[in-house]
């Protein structure tokens, strides 16, 4: 597996500090680096105090939605005498995103510690970490680390002698993008098909096994350790632009850059520097054409928008897209936008759980229409048809998979009309063979 790049001087390395350091993977190695101090500190605090600290830090969910973590935790009922559950979402499968894989591979104890703190804060004795089935190496690393944590009293019936029980159960997915959606994930853990559930009820009211549940992303939970260690004021101070976006964030940069990889920078960092400096910029003789910044489910940005954007929740919205899970798919002028959008539509069609008509039919038909265009058989009306279908696919389904398919299509047609036109006018040779 690829080895992480050495830290760039412009990175603010917090979560990724020990990427590439094999010794940090072990319990002893983690403790030597200050590990499990945050958990010990947390166990001496009340759950309410922990939640207040996280609220004050401004930490927002790193899985894509950006919901304030402390507030999410505060939704969990108190004194209800029901079992509570924490679910850690390690089903990272958003195209372009590969940060959670690295967090688990290199710093498994950072995640275990974060999960234990989160579980304690929401009154849960058990945390399920849902790891996608394809993540074989992270699975092995996490399995070993959890065993070590039990052996050393960091997990179990009496965590570090506090009298608190915290168990972690690793649950392996089996190949389904949609299980990264929190309610689909709960169904999957329960032994069901991974169909998303209608909300309400929200997970904090009736979640996993019908009990109050909180679902947090891997990166979110790892950040919790550092907030407890260094204080919410320190975390809140890590901010270069919008005060609503604080802390550091791992940005996965892939596609047409010289140095693809994960880069951890302070929120508000300029996207231009991230792409052209940290990630090494374009290949010789190439120029930037487009970026899909949030993993694949957000509007595509043209070069001008991308180079003007600041990397935080607000900064990317201001340039017409969304931060999402912060997986940047970078395309240079050799990229065929129509083909890449088709490839994404095909992805969503493959991954649709098919329970909602708009999604089942919409993802499949948009893929077929894009395929027709790429075969040189497109009609002028096809663009209107795609936009109409996309409209029907947006905001009308149980989850947002359907919207995610429509988003790159709509933005692609609006921002790169000439690329579609080249196929429709037959000026460009078909990219797909007509059968």
């Amino acid at each position, binding site marked *: 597996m690829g080895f992480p790049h050495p830290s760039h001087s412009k990175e603010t390395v917090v979560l990724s500090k020990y990427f590439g350091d094999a010794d940090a993977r072990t319990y002893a190695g983690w403790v030597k680096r200050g590990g499990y101090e945050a958990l010990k500190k947390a166990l001496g605090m009340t759950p309410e105090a922990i939640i207040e600290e996280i609220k004050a830090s401004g930490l927002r969910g790193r899985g894509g939605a950006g919901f304030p973590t402390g507030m999410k935790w505060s939704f969990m009922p108190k004194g209800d005498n029901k079992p509570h559950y924490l679910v850690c979402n390690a089903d990272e499968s958003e195209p372009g995103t590969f940060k959670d894989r690295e967090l688990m591979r290199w710093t498994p104890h950072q995640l275990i510690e974060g999960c234990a703190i989160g579980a304690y804060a929401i009154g849960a004795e058990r945390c399920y970490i849902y790891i996608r089935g394809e993540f074989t190496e992270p699975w092995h690393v996490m399995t070993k680390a959890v065993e070590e944590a039990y052996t050393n009293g960091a997990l179990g019936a009496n965590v570090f002698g506090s009298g608190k029980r915290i168990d972690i159960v690793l649950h392996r997915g*089996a*190949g389904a993008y949609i299980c990264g959606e929190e309610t689909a994930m709960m169904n999957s853990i329960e032994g069901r098909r991974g169909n998303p559930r209608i909300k309400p009820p929200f997970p904090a009211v009736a979640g996993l096994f019908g009990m109050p549940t909180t679902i947090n992303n891997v990166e979110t939970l790892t950040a919790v350790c550092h907030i407890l260690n260094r204080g919410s004021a320190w975390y809140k101070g890590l901010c270069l632009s919008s005060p609503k976006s604080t802390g550091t964030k791992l940005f996965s940069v892939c596609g047409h850059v010289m140095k*693809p990889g994960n880069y951890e920078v302070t929120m508000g960092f300029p996207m231009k520097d991230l792409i052209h400096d940290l990630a090494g910029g374009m290949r010789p003789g190439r120029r930037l054409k487009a970026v899909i910044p949030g993993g694949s489910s957000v509007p595509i940005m043209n070069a001008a928008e991308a180079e003007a954007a600041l990397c935080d929740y607000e900064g990317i919205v201001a340039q017409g897209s969304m931060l999402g899970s912060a997986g940047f798919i970078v395309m240079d002028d050799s*990229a065929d936008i129509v083909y890449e959008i088709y490839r994404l539509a095909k992805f969503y069609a493959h991954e649709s759980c098919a329970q909602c008509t708009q999604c089942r039919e919409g993802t499949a038909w948009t893929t077929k229409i894009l395929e027709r265009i790429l075969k040189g058989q497109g009609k002028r009306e096809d663009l209107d048809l795609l936009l109409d279908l996309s409209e029907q696919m947006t905001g009308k389904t149980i989850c947002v998979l359907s919207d995610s398919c429509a988003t790159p299509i709509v933005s692609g047609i609006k921002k790169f009309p000439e690329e579609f036109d080249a196929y429709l006018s037959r000026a460009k040779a078909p990219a797909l063979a007509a059968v």
Partner: protein
Amino acid sequence: MSGTAHAAHHDAPHQPVFVGKVKDKLDALFPKYPTRMACLLPALWMVQEERGWISADAIAEVATVLGLTPAYVRGVATFYTMYHLHPVGRHFIQVCGTSPCHLCGSDEVMKAILQQTGCGEVGATSPDDRFTVVEVECLGACGFATPILVDDDFHDSVTPERVAGILARYP
């Protein structure tokens, strides 16, 4: 997650999976979940690890062990792409072809793999039963394009030139 066992012959009578150590492994999971049904995904994984694929008889066995119906178990098993409901080759190769990898040349990697395994087309098993090759949607390793999984082994930054060397490790 041991290596994929060779697919059993279709007509062989079903030998129960959940006996001995495998049964112990499943029994050890029950206290970790409030329902038996929650052990369904892990149980299906155990079948696949032991047998290489999940037959109709194995589905019936899983149903009995967990107190479910075979139709229900089949319904769940078919939802997830990683469960093999048909025999596959001795080695199962998953090649990422989603946009980030496509941008970095995954088509050429796939072409080389199909040619050198003798599979010919995506989804096929080679005539010598050695390999089955499928295209997988996003392996979550876009910065290390093109990633492939051979059984449980992850290989990153695969190029057409590296394919022969990787395949040689899987007799």
